[in-house]
C-alpha cells in the first residue's frame, strides 16, 4: 500500500517525459526491485541513443590510414644536422672529462688516456680528411691553371673561386672579432650559410703558434669539428702551384660577404657593398 503511494508520484512525473506506459513500468521496476539492478536515479528526460546521423552518399570511411615510415621522416639535412650536433656534444663531454681529470690530477703526472676516448666518442680525425684535401687541391688547381700550365688572369680566377666548392679546403682564420678563433685551421667538411664547419687537427698542429708548445688546452687535445661563424671573420687558404710544388698562392675570403648558401653561389654575382662592418 505504501509502496504504491510512492510510485504514484514518480509515475505522475514520468508520464510527462515518456510516451509509452511500458517504459515507465520498466524504469520503476529497475529502481524499486528487490533483486534487480536497483538504480539510484530516474531519468526524467527521454534520451534516444540508437539513432545515427544520416551521412552523405559520397562519404567513405578511410579504412586504411597511411603510415609515414621512419625512413621518410629522416631527410638528408636532418641526418647531417644530427651528426654535427651529436659530434659537438661528444666533444663537449670529452672536454669536461679532461678538465675534471686535470683538476684531480694536479700533483701527479698521469696523462689522460685520450686515444681510447676519441675512439669511444667517435670524434672525427683530421687524418681521415687528408685525402679529401688532396682532391680539393687538384680541383682548385684545375680552376686556376686551366688548360695547361699557364695561370689565368685574376679577373677570370676570382669569379670561378667564388662559385667553387670549399668542402675539403684547408682554411685558416686570419682575422676575426672573436679573438678566440684566430689562428684556427682545419679542413672544411661542410660549408653552411653562416659558418664553416672545420675538422681541426690535434695538439701541435692545431694552430701555427702551437708547434713549439708542450702543454695543450683540452679543446686542442680533442680536435674534432669546429663551427666558425663567417660574419666579421677573414679566412685564408693556399693553392699549390702545380709547376713548382714549393710555391703556393694565397687567397683570402671575407666572411661577412660570403654568407650565401654554397649551392646558390654557383649562379650568384658578387657586387660591391659598403665596407662599414666588414671586419
Amino acid at each position, binding site marked *: 500500500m505504501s509502496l504504491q503511494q510512492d510510485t504514484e508520484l514518480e509515475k505522475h512525473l514520468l508520464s510527462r517525459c515518456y510516451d509509452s506506459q511500458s517504459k515507465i513500468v520498466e524504469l520503476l521496476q529497475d529502481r524499486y526491485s528487490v533483486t534487480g539492478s536497483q538504480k539510484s536515479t530516474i531519468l526524467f528526460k527521454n534520451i534516444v541513443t540508437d539513432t545515427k546521423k544520416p551521412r552523405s552518399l559520397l562519404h567513405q570511411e578511410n579504412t586504411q590510414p597511411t603510415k609515414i615510415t621512419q*625512413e621518410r621522416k629522416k631527410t638528408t639535412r636532418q641526418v647531417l644536422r644530427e*651528426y654535427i650536433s651529436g659530434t659537438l656534444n661528444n666533444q663537449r663531454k670529452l672536454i669536461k672529462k679532461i678538465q675534471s681529470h686535470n683538476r684531480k690530477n694536479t700533483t701527479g703526472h698521469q696523462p689522460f688516456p685520450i686515444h681510447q676516448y676519441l675512439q669511444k666518442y667517435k670524434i672525427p680525425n683530421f687524418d681521415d680528411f687528408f685525402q679529401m684535401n688532396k682532391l680539393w687541391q687538384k680541383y682548385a688547381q684545375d680552376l686556376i691553371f686551366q688548360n695547361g700550365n699557364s695561370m689565368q688572369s685574376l679577373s677570370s680566377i676570382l669569379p670561378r673561386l667564388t662559385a667553387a666548392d670549399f*668542402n675539403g679546403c684547408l682554411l685558416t682564420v686570419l682575422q676575426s672579432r672573436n679573438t678566440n678563433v684566430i689562428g684556427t685551421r682545419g679542413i672544411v667538411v661542410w660549408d653552411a650559410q653562416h659558418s664553416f664547419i672545420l675538422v681541426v687537427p690535434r695538439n701541435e698542429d692545431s694552430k701555427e703558434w702551437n708547434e713549439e708548445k708542450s702543454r695543450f688546452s683540452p679543446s686542442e687535445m680533442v680536435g674534432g669539428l669546429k663551427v666558425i661563424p663567417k660574419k666579421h671573420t677573414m679566412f685564408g687558404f693556399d693553392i699549390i702551384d702545380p709547376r713548382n710544388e714549393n710555391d703556393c698562392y694565397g687567397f683570402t675570403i671575407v666572411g661577412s660577404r660570403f654568407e650565401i648558401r654554397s*649551392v646558390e653561389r*654557383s*649562379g650568384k654575382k658578387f657586387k660591391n657593398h659598403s665596407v662599414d662592418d666588414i671586419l
Partner: protein
Amino acid sequence: MAKGKGKGKGKGKDKGKSVPNRDNYARISYLYQISNQFYLAHPEYQALSRGYNRNLDLIAKKTVIKLSPHIKRTLCKKCNTMLIPGLTMSMYIENLSKQKSQHNDVFVNKCLNCGKCKRFPVGKDRNYILFTDKQNENIPT
C-alpha cells in the same frame, strides 16, 4: 665507376672547344668523387657523404646541367645515398604478372637505406641502349 661522365659528354671529338658551364661540371665531378671516397674509405662519415650528394643534386638542378643516367642511377633519389651494389643497394629481377611472361620482367634496384626502388622494365626491350651510350656508338673514332 661512371665518375665525371657528365663532363663534356658528347663533345669529346673537339677538345679545343671550351665547354660551357665547365666550372659547374668540375664542381659536380669533385663532389661526386669526395662522397664516393668517403663512403668507401670512411663509412662512419656517411652523413657527410649524403650531404655532398644532396649538394650535387641541387647544383645540377640550379645550373640546369644534364647529368648522365649512369651518375643518376648511382645516387638514391630520396635519401641521397651512394648506391653501391651489395653495400647500400640490392638488385633483383621481379615479375608481377600472372603468366610470368618474359616481357614483364622488371629489374629492381632497391636502396637499403630508405627502401626506395628504382624499376627498369628490361623485359620490354632487351637490347635497349641508353641515349648517351647511343651517342658514344655513333661517334666515329
